[in-house]
């Protein structure tokens, strides 16, 4: 266990020495503050100034921000991985007793843990818990947390270095954009957006009658995404 512990400690040291990574880790805290104080302020401001009630959109805004945290945590660890691969460090770690699998486990599990803690806290802080029971909230948090390793594998599979990583990490935002039509429109055609793993989670929150079904579907889609990305990443890893 000590070898994993040391790698985890060294990750935190690397993050502390890179202002961009520190900022990426702190960003979820900043937008959580926005959820707590910013959204109620905006609702009131728009109501007073424009005589329009946007309160019904508030839950969507809150949910929309939730997957950003696992993406950022995954990006932080993805950037560390890209730096390590660029510098040949992964090749060395693979021939230590830590091994390739031990190394990857740490890289994938740590952002999941941070995301899980964040997601559960966020659901209760933002008030999204009214849509889910406790088990569903935990399960949704866990499934959404796996977007962290998804981002990490995405960067590892398609970027050669950190500069490329910064550019392609933005394309992950497409998964978020695909949530918007589902909240605005209605109809079976919206299933075309089911390719986005987060779409299923959004449905689980805002279609409470079928929450379990959407959670189940979401777990499968997340698993398939991670498996495909892992295969692609693994080819580059060797």
């Amino acid at each position, binding site marked *: 266990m*000590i*070898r994993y*512990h*040391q*790698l985890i400690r*060294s990750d935190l*040291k*690397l993050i502390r*020495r*890179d202002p961009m990574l520190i900022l990426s880790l702190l960003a979820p805290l900043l937008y959580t503050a926005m959820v707590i104080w910013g959204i109620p302020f905006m609702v009131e401001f728009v109501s007073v100034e424009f005589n329009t009630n946007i309160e019904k959109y508030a839950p969507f805004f809150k949910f929309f921000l939730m997957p950003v945290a696992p993406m950022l945590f995954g990006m932080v660890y993805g950037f560390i991985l890209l730096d*390590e691969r660029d*510098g*040949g*460090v992964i*090749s*060395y*770690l*693979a*021939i*230590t*007793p*830590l*091994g390739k699998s*031990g190394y990857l486990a740490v890289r994938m599990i740590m952002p999941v843990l941070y995301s899980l803690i964040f997601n559960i806290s966020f659901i209760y802080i933002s008030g999204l818990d009214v849509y889910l029971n406790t088990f569903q909230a935990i399960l949704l948090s866990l499934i959404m947390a796996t977007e962290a390793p998804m981002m990490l594998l995405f960067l590892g599979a398609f970027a050669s270095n950190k500069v490329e990583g910064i550019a392609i990490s933005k394309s992950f935002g497409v998964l978020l954009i695909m949530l918007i039509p589902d909240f605005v429109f209605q109809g079976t055609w919206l299933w075309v957006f089911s390719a986005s793993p987060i779409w299923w989670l959004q449905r689980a929150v805002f279609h409470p009658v079928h929450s379990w079904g959407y959670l189940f579907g979401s777990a499968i889609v997340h698993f398939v995404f991670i498996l495909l990305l892992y295969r692609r990443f693994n080819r580059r890893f*060797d």
Partner: protein
Amino acid sequence: MITVNNLLFTYNQKDKPTLKNISFEVANAEIFGFLGPSGAGKSTTQKVLTGVLKKYAGSVRLNGNEIKNIDKNFYENIGVAFEFPNLYLKFTALENLQLFSSFYTCEQFEMNELLKRVGLWDDRDAKVEVFSKGMRMRLNFIRAIMHKPTLLFLDEPTSGLDPTNSRLLKDMIKELRDSGTTIFLTTHNMTDADELCDRIAFMIDGELPVIDSPENLKLQYGKKSVKVRYRKNNNISTNEFELAGLGKNKQFLSLINNNEVETIHTQEATIEDIFIKVTGKHLQ
């Protein structure tokens, strides 16, 4: 220590094999040199021997255990120093060693002593990103040996080092061999190979046409003659004589008795000459 039999390795099934049924053995406490031009298959062989590539045909045994069946504990006894030092640049020298050292449970060398030995003690708290190539190579080397591996893989260990530090590392390599470490040395440097290796193998296009000690190869491929360089009437001249019957060779005896001899050298081949002769290729 290492027994390789008919090792065949292909990266893609459609391509030609990178390693073509090579066989060799490395004994305990031996420095085995692996020489060959870029793309010959040296790195692939090292990857197979370190368990990184496992989809090979043939047999590769380390202390009797087939390498494709090894577990992570195997790496407790393996040390590797790659040609390009792969260290955490944002960490100091000491932080790098402390991190990598934590992956091993076996008895290790005293880290501070190693840093002092290779002249990095005063720079132990400096980040590796400010290190020169030579400093990184030295740190890379001590990282590979700090857990006292029984089998050590070294890839161009003296590349980028000044003569003093090159000598230091070569002395340390010999000490490790003398204390029982088996060393697999990959290099282009003929002087290093000649000086360090107990045996060398030439690798060309995935095959090993020659495996022998440097001494035997130099004798086998060298000319059995002696070249005398001497001064006569303020001019430098050179004559070459067959070694056979040299003591009775009147011309030779007359030359060394009546002239001021500058140098006398036997004409055994250099490792580089032998490599070119055997393979028809230059080392690059």
